[in-house]
């Protein structure tokens, strides 16, 4: 069979969302041997947008054009927020390293200096975010200029509706309109799937047919918006080619999940992390954890798929990036919230009656979203006595307490910067 029943490494990363991927990336870039465990499904829900920080304080709905100013305000107002605890220089460095990797993996990002930009969401609403895939960049320009714009969708693609987008955007942007067409090769098909469509556009005949169908719909001076379908790989060059064929600027908008930008991220990590020497076990999950006599962690794995992975990972250190409830890093019953792998203390509201507010969209947000793992300066989870639970256990990403990423629009920023801080802290201990 040839596969090892036990995998030894310096650092085990638990979780395969944005924080776990970033932790593996940063660690492997520093020459650390890494094993990463956890289902990679969650990242499919990513829209591709990279948030840093856009809203704070959430109850005032204050939107920051400059996220760095926002972070400085955060340091005073919420000192326990993960971003408050990482120097701006490190946050910058983490984003630069992450974006450089994305570029090398074929997903270049674009942004405007050190500012947030406004982007179109799949609901036709607008969102402030920090960096967006280059294939979406023209949307930012178009949204700002509000000139003539055509947004198209495709018969049978339920995850993207151009008339909804045009209607909603039309409140502030009268020159936007919508059209629906058949995607090449799917004429008369009632249900089409974004991933298949994206793969077919990697073939030039499909892209050319699409361009031929789009061109007659476009009026003079219009820019073209379309669901994010321009290939799983090499999207930027496909975009350039489509623009050339239709003779207008084109931009992608993410669809409802699971969207092609999510698949792109997943494939980029799945392909390029192993190339950097990371041992990835995305079919496995951690079934139990124990300490070896020498202080190392022993993670017992259980297989979810039928692929045979190792039975255990033995590592000097662990980055816990297992996510929140959706990622199964946290779990709950009627009375409390717990951390699922190490049984770490979870900061949480005292009683379930305080978990959620009675209005879904209450500007103050739901208190349960502040629940999570509290950490020390080195991003090590604290035990009940508020000392590091383990010498070499770190936590990163959405499992961290005192951040409401859905409201603050800081999910990627927290994931990437905290993964960076955790890996850096481990590096210091290692030397």
């Amino acid at each position, binding site marked *: 069979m040839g596969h090892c029943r036990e995998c030894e490494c310096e650092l085990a990363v638990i979780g395969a969302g944005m924080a776990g991927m970033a932790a593996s990336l940063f660690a492997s870039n520093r020459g650390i041997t890494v094993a990463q465990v956890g289902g990679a499904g969650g990242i499919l829900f990513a829209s591709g947008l990279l948030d840093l920080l856009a809203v704070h304080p959430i109850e005032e709905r204050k939107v920051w054009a400059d996220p760095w100013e926002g972070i400085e305000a955060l340091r005073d107002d919420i000192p326990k927020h993960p971003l408050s605890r990482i120097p701006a220089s490190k946050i910058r460095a983490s984003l630069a390293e992450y974006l450089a990797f994305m570029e090398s993996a074929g997903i270049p990002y674009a942004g405007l200096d050190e500012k947030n930009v406004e982007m179109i969401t799949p609901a036709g609403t607008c969102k402030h975010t920090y960096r967006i895939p280059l294939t979406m960049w023209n949307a930012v320009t178009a949204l700002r200029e509000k000139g003539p714009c055509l947004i198209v969708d495709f018969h049978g693609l339920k995850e993207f509706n151009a008339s909804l987008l045009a209607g909603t955007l039309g409140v502030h942007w009268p020159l936007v309109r919508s059209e629906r067409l058949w995607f090449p090769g799917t004429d008369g098909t009632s249900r089409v799937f974004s991933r298949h469509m994206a793969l077919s556009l990697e073939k030039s005949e499909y892209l050319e047919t699409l361009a031929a169908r789009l061109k007659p719909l476009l009026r003079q001076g219009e820019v073209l918006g379309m669901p994010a379908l321009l290939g799983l790989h090499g999207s930027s060059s496909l975009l350039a080619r489509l623009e050339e064929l239709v003779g207008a600027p084109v931009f992608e908008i993410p669809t*409802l999940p699971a969207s092609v930008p999510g698949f792109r991220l997943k494939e980029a990590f799945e392909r390029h992390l192993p190339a950097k020497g990371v041992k990835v076990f995305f079919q496995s999950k951690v079934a139990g954890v124990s300490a070896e006599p020498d202080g190392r962690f022993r993670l017992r794995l259980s297989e979810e798929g039928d692929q045979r992975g190792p039975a255990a990972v033995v590592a000097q250190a662990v980055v816990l990036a297992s996510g929140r409830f959706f990622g199964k890093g946290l779990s709950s019953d009627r009375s409390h919230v717990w951390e699922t792998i190490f049984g770490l203390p979870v900061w949480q509201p005292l009683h379930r009656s305080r978990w959620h507010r*009675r209005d879904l969209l209450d500007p103050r947000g739901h208190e349960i979203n502040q629940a999570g793992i509290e950490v020390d300066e080195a991003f090590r989870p604290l035990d009940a006595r508020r000392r590091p639970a383990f010498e070499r256990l770190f936590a990163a990403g959405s499992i961290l307490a005192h951040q409401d990423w859905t409201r603050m629009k800081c999910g990627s920023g927290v994931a990437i910067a905290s993964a960076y801080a955790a890996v850096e802290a481990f590096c210091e201990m290692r030397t």
Partner: protein
Amino acid sequence: METQVLIIGGGITGTGLARDLALRGVQCVVVERADINAGASGANHGLLHSGARYVANDPAAARECWEEGSILKRVGAHCIEMTGGLFVAVEGDDERYIADFPSMCGRCGIPVTEVEVKEAREIEPALSDRLIAAYKVEDATIDPFKLSLENIWQAQELGTVLLRNTRVVGFTVEHGRIVSVRTQDARTGQERQIRPLEVVNAAGAWSAQVAALAGVTIDMVYSKGTLLVTLSRVTRHVVNRLRRPSNADILVPGGTVSLLGTTSVKVDSLDEIYPTVEEVDLIVREESAMVPELASTRYVRAYAGVRPLVGSQREGDARSLSRGFALLDHERDGLLNFATITGGKFTTYRLMAEKAADLVCRRLGVSAPCRTRTQPLPSSPVCRWTETGRGPQEWIEKNDPDDALLCECEMVPCSAVDTVVSALEKRGDLVDLVSIGLRSRIGKGPCQGTFCSLKIAGYLYDRGIVKKGEGIKGVREFLRERWRGQHSILWGTQLVQAELQEALHCGVFCQELADLSE
């Protein structure tokens, strides 16, 4: 606008009354402040009582339930599932009550059969192993939304006008008669005058507020009841706790789900009616004594309604028909063409409507008799989409791949939404997500509207029914409406769903920030 009868309230009493009067050839306008079954009519178990629950405390209501239940099983069979019911006691329950139960039922004429505990657990394997007694009764379940929609549908076919989102804001009284009723559109604020010959107040818990606008005082007690909905059906039968009526006594199958509750909490105000975490925990704790798996099953929703209980009825008031419901002829308050029908139980709605219609017809000089006792309630194709399990069943039967599912959890196809939307449009009615949701299963599955809300909004844009920001605002309203039923039951798997919902609608779409004002 002129009409013979103005009915205030579009719950089961108001819709039932509209049908009753329409069948007697009387022309009606129904004004409803929100939508069909917006109050207690839409927030109950959907239990067609055998009456056995009330044999100790309220024998008159028990008999009334038994008689009316028997009528409804004949005339409204398509809204009813003949589940049968069990009354069960567990260790620690009052043995005296258990022993007296069959004779109390007998005195009310309610059939009851004792069942061996072992047999009861064979019939319903989910029952506790701490069972000490069990009786079979003829409980059944009823789809309250379907029933009210069918009633108003037939009334509309016969000429009744329904005005939704319309609240009564004032009465003009001349010489002891209400000559004009001022209403206001809850959305646009637009006012309208309706000139009726007779006015019936069927506003449920809001009856006292409506009557007060006409200068009439009704003494009411507001009792909030909370219920829970499971993800999947737990028992085949209705299961009642065999004890004096108390909190959280009943578990009722509702198609593919089960409903359990209720609580009874006195409230002073009708605003801000919502289930609390404490009530939810109480229901789970109490009912898991009968059915242990209720402690660990997945819940998708909680909801609360307010029972309209007429407080201190005047001594010797002959118009009080029973302790169950009250028909108040406001002639005694100096208003010759005004009556209030309130209190009562869902099971007895038809009788309530009949008595109110009798009064109105007597005053109008209409001699046509009540026909709802014998004439079957028609089954309209537009009212069938409230049924749980309808979606999957038709999906298999029709096997039409071109009929895309707009709500994947509940398998509601585009054609179903088309049917509902076309029916609303035909009557010039408001079409939005909340209205479609009330008339179908959309958003009622595990995801509680996270995905289908946007897909249906897209469909409404495609059809040109909504424009500009209306559709996305409708999504927001719909999600907020669903959330009212979610915030108290979010733990375990349902909390995961809620997190996904917020990640998408707030994290990505910024729905909490979006400014759609023009």
